[in-house]
């Protein structure tokens, strides 16, 4: 049974570039070779989050810029390790956070699909199947075998989208890009996206767009400054957003 459970989840984001990053400061500063917690500039990205997301839930993370939405997504995906608390994710995770990551612009569309397949740990045969499927949906024709550096913006989006959605994870983590693409493209992508979302046991999406939340989600979590301000049914949480307490 797919499940996401966070207990007292905390994440501090150290900003090394600003202050204590250099070795010089570490060696010559007052706190010589001594890790002083106050010596580095830390931004508390997530503070004491407790939530449990069960099978069938479609959760929207809402909140202003810098609220910690994407950081939470990345923590759920396993990129960042929490500094306190615990996190359990049961089920195969599929993260659509930045689709362009890991793309090689000098390689052709087909080579990029294969590369992505390797990133996902697929076998050669699975990579070939993935390539066929992506080619069929993206409709790039001959351009599928041309370096993606030469693609138009639209072609790039079609390839990324086809590639990103060619999976069926149990736990789907998305940044809003996917649900808020341009209208003409979304019409075509609609059915495919619905299948992806419908097939997942759990979806968590970070978004600003209330339309997206109302349309796709059953529950909303409102984050602000790394803290959960509201957690509940979509309408209740969004109303809270419209009129902040």
């Amino acid at each position: 049974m797919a499940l996401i459970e966070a207990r007292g989840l905390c994440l501090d984001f150290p900003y090394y570039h600003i202050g204590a990053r250099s070795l010089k400061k570490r060696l010559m500063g007052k706190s010589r070779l001594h890790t002083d917690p106050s010596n580095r500039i830390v931004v508390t990205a997530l503070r004491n989050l407790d939530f449990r997301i069960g099978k069938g839930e479609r959760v929207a993370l809402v909140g202003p810029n810098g609220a910690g939405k994407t950081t939470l997504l990345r923590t759920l995906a396993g990129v960042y390790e929490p500094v306190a608390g615990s996190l359990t994710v049961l089920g195969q995770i599929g993260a659509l956070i930045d689709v362009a990551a890991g793309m090689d612009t000098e390689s052709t569309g087909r080579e990029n699909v294969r590369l992505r397949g390797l990133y996902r740990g697929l076998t050669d045969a699975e990579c070939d199947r993935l390539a066929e499927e992506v080619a069929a949906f993206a409709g790039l024709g001959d351009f599928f075998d041309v370096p993606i550096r030469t693609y138009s913006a639209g072609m790039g989006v079609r390839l990324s989208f086809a590639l990103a959605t060619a999976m069926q994870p149990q736990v789907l983590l998305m940044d809003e890009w996917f649900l808020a693409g341009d209208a003409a493209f979304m019409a075509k992508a609609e059915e495919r996206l619905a299948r992806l979302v419908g097939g997942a046991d759990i979806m968590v999406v970070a978004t600003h767009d209330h339309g997206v939340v109302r349309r796709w989600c059953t529950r909303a979590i409102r984050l602000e400054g790394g803290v959960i301000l509201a957690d509940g049914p979509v309408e209740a949480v969004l109303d809270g957003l419209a009129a902040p307490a």
Partner: protein
Amino acid sequence: MLDQTAAPLPAYHVDAADPQRLRKAVEDVRLGAQRWRLASTLAWLDIRNRYRGSVLGPFWLTLSTGAMLLGLGLLYSALFKMSLREYLPHLAVSLVIWNAISQMVNDATTSLTASEGIIRQLPLPYTVHALRCVMRNAIIAAHNFPLILVVFLVCGHLPGPEAILAIPGFALIAVNSVAAALFLGMLCARFRDIGPIVGSTMQLAFFLTPILWKPRLLGDWEAWMPFNPFYAILETVRGPLVENGGPPLAWLAAIVYTVLTVTVAAVFFVRFRGRVAFWV
């Protein structure tokens, strides 16, 4: 759509109170080694992209090493009053292996920061990035190896059956490379000043290591040579190929240094693996 097997659900669990660092680090290395196909694909892509549009590609390196061999060979054989036939095989093996080691070490400093985009988006074993770096440098180094063969043929130098010992020598270099890629990759992600320090250290090491000169030119000081890790590692390949097998002390030193690098890298990796995503 790709079928997902209905096997028991994969579980991702982290608990800051019980970090299980050792288990996760071992798992990272194991899964990373399993994904070697990804690492090698990325390594080849790196090389293709680096030399895109160039006619000779990585063979430019072969050409420049060859020119360096010829120039340095003529000059230093005269300086050291050695015949070219005696000096050139030594120089060829030393220079080619040194170039490989030095490029590997310098590249190791960016093994993780260069993959920043991927590290922050895809939870991959960090070992994959280290392997990518090692494989990339191994492929580049391999372009220089024919030079050794050419020099041996021209000088009529024929290594005996002990040349087979060069294989464990290469294995030692490979093990050290993986450890360096992980350790320096992490260290330089955290402290951005280490990269330049490593660069100048390697430059100094080039002169302190018997590459241009032969250890016996040191006279009484030769006994101190094993304290130079680069000498020890270099000798495990050069000895078998040029000097009828390296001195046992060099082999012993090389093995000790390898154990040391691997231990340091392992301790550092186990302790700080969870912080890498914040450092890059």
